[in-house]
Structures are given as structure tokens and as C-alpha cells.
């Protein structure tokens, strides 16, 4: 289990070693989540059309260790983009992965960039 958690570490845009192409913009739903798989990692991707911003985070909910976050609802809390886990509605910031319910666990986030209509996720390995 620990192994699974350690697999997901937040990557800052400046730390990216490889940008991985994960599909075209139109493959992803608007204002909702979808999941991609890269090697052994499952990453949830969110497209906020109102600000035309993209966010990516681990698909693993750290609360009960289930691969579900991409299936949760997204939105904002006082301007902070967030997602809510579909299992127990735990909410996390999509900006920094912090827990918005004041609990201990948080999630890893990943940078996203769009080039020529293609979506890229940044990894540090």
C-alpha cells in the first residue's frame, strides 16, 4: 500500500523531465474528469472550460486507497479549483493537492500543457 502511495509525488512544472502526450483536447470531457494511464500510474485529468485551465492529479483517493478520483465532480471552493471523491465526497485542491476538509491526507498534482490540441502531462521521471 505504501508503495502505491509513494508512486504519486507532486511534480512542479519546473521539475518536469518528460511531457507525456495523453490524447487530444476533444478526448477529454469539459468541466469533468477523465483518467489516463502512464506506465503504472493512473492520473485524473480535469478541464475547466470557464478559465480554460487544465489540472491533473493522482486517480488514487488517499482516504480509502481506491482508484476513483477521476470519476468525482469538480468545481471550486472560494475560487480554488477542486474535486470531490465519488466515494465519500472528500475534496482536494487541484492547485496544490491539499485536503480541503481539514484532514491529514492530500494528493499529488501534475502539470498539464496543451500544444496544438494535444494534452501533455508532466512527469519527473
Amino acid at each position, binding site marked *: 500500500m505504501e508503495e502505491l502511495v509513494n508512486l504519486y509525488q507532486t511534480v512542479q512544472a519546473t521539475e518536469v523531465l518528460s511531457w507525456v*502526450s*495523453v*490524447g487530444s483536447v476533444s*478526448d*477529454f*470531457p*469539459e*468541466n*469533468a474528469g*477523465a*483518467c*489516463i*494511464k*502512464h506506465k503504472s500510474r*493512473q492520473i485524473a*485529468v480535469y478541464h*475547466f472550460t*470557464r*478559465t480554460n485551465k487544465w489540472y491533473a492529479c493522482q486517480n488514487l483517493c488517499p482516504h*480509502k*486507497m*481506491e*482508484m*476513483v478520483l477521476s*470519476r*468525482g*465532480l*469538480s*468545481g*471550486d*471552493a*472560494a*475560487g480554488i*479549483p*477542486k474535486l*470531490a471523491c*465519488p*466515494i465519500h*465526497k472528500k*475534496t482536494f485542491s487541484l492547485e496544490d493537492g491539499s485536503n480541503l476538509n481539514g484532514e491529514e491526507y492530500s494528493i499529488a498534482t501534475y502539470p498539464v500543457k496543451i500544444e496544438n490540441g494535444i494534452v501533455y502531462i508532466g512527469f519527473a521521471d
Partner: protein
Amino acid sequence: MERIILVGNGMVGYKFCEKLISHPNRDQFDILVFGEENRPAYDRVHLSEYFTLESPDELLMAPRDWYADNGITLRTSEMILSVDTENKKVVTHKNESFEYDHLVIATGSSPFIPTIKGSEKEGIFIYRTIEDLEAIQTYSDKLKAKGRYQSAVLGGGLLGLEAANASKELGMTTHVIEFAGKLMPRQLDQAASDLLQSKIQSIGLKVHLGKNSKEIIGDGETEAIEFTDGTTLAVDMIIISAGIRPRDELARNSGIAVGERGGIVVNNRMETSVPGIYAIGEVALYNQNIYGLVAPGYEMAAVALDQIAGGTKLMSPSIDMSTQLKLVGTEVASFGDPFVESEDAIAIRYENKQRGVYKRINISKDGSRLLGGILVGDSSDYNTLFQLYINGMKLPENAEDLILGQRGAGSKSLLGSVLDLPDTAQICSCEAVSKGAICDAIKSGCCQDLKGVIKHTKASTSCGGCKPMVVDIVKETLKSLGKEVKETICEHFEYSRQELFDLVKLNNTTGYDEALDTFGKGHGCEICKPVMASIFASIFMETANKQVAIQDSNDRFLANIQRNGTYSVVPRVAGGEITPEKLVVLGQVAKKFDLYTKITGGQRIDLFGAQLHELPMIWKELIDAGFESGHAYGKSLRTVKSCVGSTWCRFGLHDSVSFAIRIEERYKGLRSPHKLKGGVSGCIRECAEARGKDFGVIAVEGGWNLYVCGNGGANPKHAILLASQLDDDTCIKYLDRFLIYYIRTAGPLVRTAPWLEKLEGGIEYLKKVVVEDCLGMAAEFEAEMDGLVERYACEWKEAIEDPETLKRFKPFVNTEETDEELVFVPLREQKMPRPW
């Protein structure tokens, strides 16, 4: 440190303790409480609810720990036999003595037992304590086992009717026997009594008025009562409730003055004839009267405490005996002088036998003041009338409006604003909370909302009758401070669900983004998105496939997410009726996709453990076999459960299965503020448990009885009768109106039972809306439902037919792989997720 000894741990004794612990001089006193019963003080007012409670502890005023936690020494099962007034000592029945500085006697009262020949026989009970109730229950169980069901209550007063209700709850055929020519003779006039009598008779109680019991007949056991008019009534047990007698033995044994007909004499400081000794509650004789109500008892407790602590508080010179309560399911209220008909007073009466309502007010001849009145069947005006009476406020020009309501458009509360009440107006008489105290709690910044005010002032925490008025005062006070409280659903929409519903409808808003642009802000969130999805669905009957992104996670994937992120699949099995062929298909599908199968509580079959990408494949097979979505994942109609009904059952009156199927087919796919469940039973044995549902239909002679607003779950509620003996079409018509009214007005995730609880006017008002069409909107409601029914579509059929919507069931955007990390473990020849 001075010691207070309190003898008696009933409701009033408890109140004394409660007031003591919050008193500023609490530290100066040490308190020792004696109670002769084995449990701490409990709520005698709601004693008849005892049988419906899970534990008698629910009746406790406070748990035993509360006393210790607050430094109160409580000794239960100990009786004080005498007081040594000279040496300031009390002596218990175990002959132990305890010294006091201040003694408070709150021993209450006991039932008065009239002298009737044969009253020593077996099967004769009183109704006062939990032990009495338990004895009644044990005896009635014994009788029922022998096929004997007749029970009589001697006394048709307030307590007698409560006792009768308890006896009825025990399944006994209950007779109420009253010496006077009317029920509740101290509170009601003849017309009010007549109405109450017909109401309680309609639920099965038998009433015998003007009957004087002469002798109880039987060979050792009670078998019958003989009356002085020579008639007899065969009964197997008798509960005596013929009034109360103060428990003043302690005073009599100790040289403390008592009244001629009992009761410890007290002055307006609650002092007895012996300095340092006080009496409060039903044992105290104040103004030559014993007061058998909670409110004056509580006031006495407050006065005695204040006097002991060196204060100057005095008992009100005259005690108000107004009461408002629910007796055997009927609202009854009586205030001021209910009977006056002197030269200076005029009575105005309103009676509607069809609705079962009687109202009477007595006003001064010049029409300026309210002197008293009676309400039976609908006491919703009580709070207003009581305030007008107790504060001596000037009446409106047409006094009849007080009970008839202002007719015509633009009618408003007869009080004007609740803020027009004087600050001294007592709003909560149980807890003695004035209007000023409520307003000050808010104005001082001490409380921000209703919850805070109730916690701070304790208003409405005892009988709860004043709650609507407390709510109004809090609301109006907040408003006057410019702090209007709004029930907004979240930070993105500053509106209640009902307001959003209207906004979407009026603006003909067709999408979530448009709504956010027009009357919302930000990106939305997991709260407002599903609420808006539900509103769009309820107005336009759009399925969850139309605006996928705003659906709650389960609606988005049209299945119920389970522990490990897999889904369960529940096809509709209307009314729980299924052919063998279809049953085989369910088995085959489950086998093919290796799904765990279980029968649900709603008479369907749940298939668990489906992965996201398998859902469309599973549904393709189910739809080919003629199944439809069961909407088990949605806040929508789930099932209409049925018993097998008259087609097979030898007791069945009507065909409950056919009717359940008709209802389920009509409302399938209907989205609502919360899930909706229904039930149809073919007879009153109620095997479909229809009264545990949001709507329940039960077959009776001559049609169906329709019950609404029940649920199981954490707070089980029985559905309440909305209308009786309906034919099929009328029943459907009422259901249409009820459901649309609920869908339009309920808050998000509020089920029908709590919705009804919050609905002003409660079930009576709901009846007016649904049955009597008081809003004049019945036709619109029905047309709206017809439209929704017409636009129904199976959303799973839609989903598998549209390649675009199918994309959402692909686990990963960038690969065709599926999630291989899922782990299942075996369980009784099936599988289950690995435990968390």
C-alpha cells in the same frame, strides 16, 4: 457552603436542578436530591410515547451522568419519610438522616382513586409512572393471549385520554368513561367535546359520557363495571385516571401546614409555613389551587431557587392554565377562560364537521380584548391567540378573522409582525422565555441563528408548542438587523433549491452553464451541480445523459459506485413482479460477468462488482431481454414495493401488485430532491410495509388509503394518512399533486418526512393543497406530471445507442487497457471487494 435538599426528582425537581447549575451563585450551594423512583426524572407529559420508544431512557430529562457531572448528588429509590424541622434534618425510609439549610419539597402528586366497590380486584391500574405503564403492558399481554381485549379508562380528562391512547397502542379495545357529560370538562365546552369525541371514536376509541361507576364486578379478576344507572360494561382491565392528589404526606408528618383538601400551603415566595422549607410543583397549594401543568411548576422552581439564593423573585399573582397539546392524534388547545358567557363577553364559534375543526373565542363586549378560547382539530392559531390574550392586546376590527383567517387576497398574520408583541410577552411558558429575551440574544450578538437562540434561551425545548413563534421572532429580529437568513445551497448560487427551481422555470434556462452565467458564479461544485441536474430533470424530464458533467458521480455512470470503485447494476422490476424467463436472464448476465448477486430491500436484484467498461456490455444484454434502468443510482423513484395482493392472497382486498406496477411505471425515471420509495399493500396487514415509504397505498373496504411522507433509515417515520377510500385514478391524481408539490418545494436532499415536518401547517396543510386544492394548482400539478411521464426514456437504452455517450465508460482516455489492479476476495461461493 449551604446545603439544599430537594425531595422529589420529577420534572419540576429536575427543572430546579437545571436552574441551579446555571445560577451565578451556584458555588455557594451543595445539593442532594432524593427520588423515590428507581430512575432519574423523566418526561411524564409524553408518557404514552413510551411504547414507541426503543428505550425508556429516551424519556429521561437528563441521563444519570448529568447529575454527577454537574455536582448534584442524586439518590434514587430513596424515600424521605419525615422532616425534623427543628434540627433541619430529613429522615429516609432506611432511617438515615441528612442535614439541610434549605429544603425543597417537590413530591408531586398521585392519581386520585375514587372509592368504588370492588376496586381491589386484579386488573385495575393507575397511570402515572413508567412502572405503571409496564404493569399495564404486562397485564394486557396476558389478557390478549387469552383473547380478551376490553380495556376501560375511568376519566375523560387530559390524562385519561393520554392513558386511553396508551391502552389503544397496546392493541386493546379501549373505552373512555367520564362522569361529566363531556370530555375534558375543565377545558372544553360541549361542542368542542362532541367534535373531539367523534374524532377519537373514528380511530377506534369508545366513549361513554355521564357514567358514574358503582362497582367493579369479577371473580378475583376484573370482568365488568356496573354503573349507577344500572347498566354494565364488560371490561378485562381498568385504568383509573380520575384526577390527582398532592403527595403531601411528608408535610403532614412533619408539622408543615397543608390545605383542607390537601397540598402544602405556600406563599408567593414558595415558602411553606416553616421557614427555610419550600414546596414546588403539583404538591404546592398556591392561591388555594393545585396546578397540574408543567409551566407553573417550572415557574415555582425558578422562584424557590431565586429566594434561596437571596433574590426577590415572586410567583405571578394569577396562574395561566392555557394548554395546547395533541391528544390521541387530535390537536386540542384551551386558553384563558374557555367558557365565559357573562353579560360582558361574547363568544364567536366556528365549526366545520367535515374537516373536524372547532374554534371558539370569547371576546369582551366592545370587541377590544380576547378573554379565552378553545381550539379542536387545528390549533395552529394558538400561539397568536394566546399572545393576544395574555398581553391584553387590542383586537383587529373584525374579531372573527382571528379564527376564520382574513379572507381575500393579501392576508397576513393577525398579529401584524411578531415584533409588535411587547418585550415582556412570554413566548415559551415552559421555560419562561420572553420575546425580549429572544430578541436580546440576537441583538447582543450572542446568538446568530435559531439554533443558537434555542440553545441559549432554552425556548421551545420543553413541549415545543411555541417553536413556530420562536422561529418567527428570530427571523424577524435578524431581518430587522439587516441580517436576513437565506437557505442558499452553496457559495455558487445564493438561492434556495425552490428559488432555483423557479428561476430555471421562469427564465427557461436549459443548461447548467447558462444558469451559472445568469444567476450563479464561479465554477460550481459537487453540491450545486447535482441539485441543478435534479432541477433540470424535474422540469424538462431530461435524462442524466443530457448534461453528463453536472451529474453526481453515480448518475454520470448510471450505476452505484461501491467500495472498490466497481459498480452495481439494478434493473427495474416494477412492483417486484418478474417472469421466470427474465429471472434466468439476470442469472445468466451475472454469471457471464462474474457479478455478486443479492436481493434488495425494494424487491429487485442487485448485481455487484461490474467494472466501468463492463457497464454498457451488461446493459446491452439486459435491454435486449426487455429490462430498463432501475434508477437505483439516482435521487429519483426507486421502487414501489408490493405484497402479492388479492390475486393470490386469501386475505387480500385489492390487487396490490397491478396497482404497484401501474404506479411504478408512471413515476419511473422521475427525479426528485431525494430518493423516492413507494409501497402498495393489499390489505391492512400491510405486508408491503407501505407506511415506511415516501408514499404508501393500503387497500381498505371501498378503495385505497393513501399515506405520505414515511421512511425507513436512520429516523424511521410512518407515513401519515392523506386521504382514504380512493379509487385507482383519484389515488394517482393525488400522488401526482403530492409529488410535484414536493419536488417543487423541498430543499436539496430532503426526503418527504423532514420536508413535511418543515412544511408550515404540516399534514393538514398538505391535505388542503392536495385534496382540497387550496392553491388552485392541482390541474397544473397533474398536467406537469403528465408531461414528465410522457417524456420518460430509459437512460441506459439512450446511452448504449449513442457512441458519444459511451466514451464515458472507457476507463482510460489514452489506452484500451482496463484497470487490472482490482482485487476481489471470495465469500460464500461469490466474490466481494477486499476489505478496507
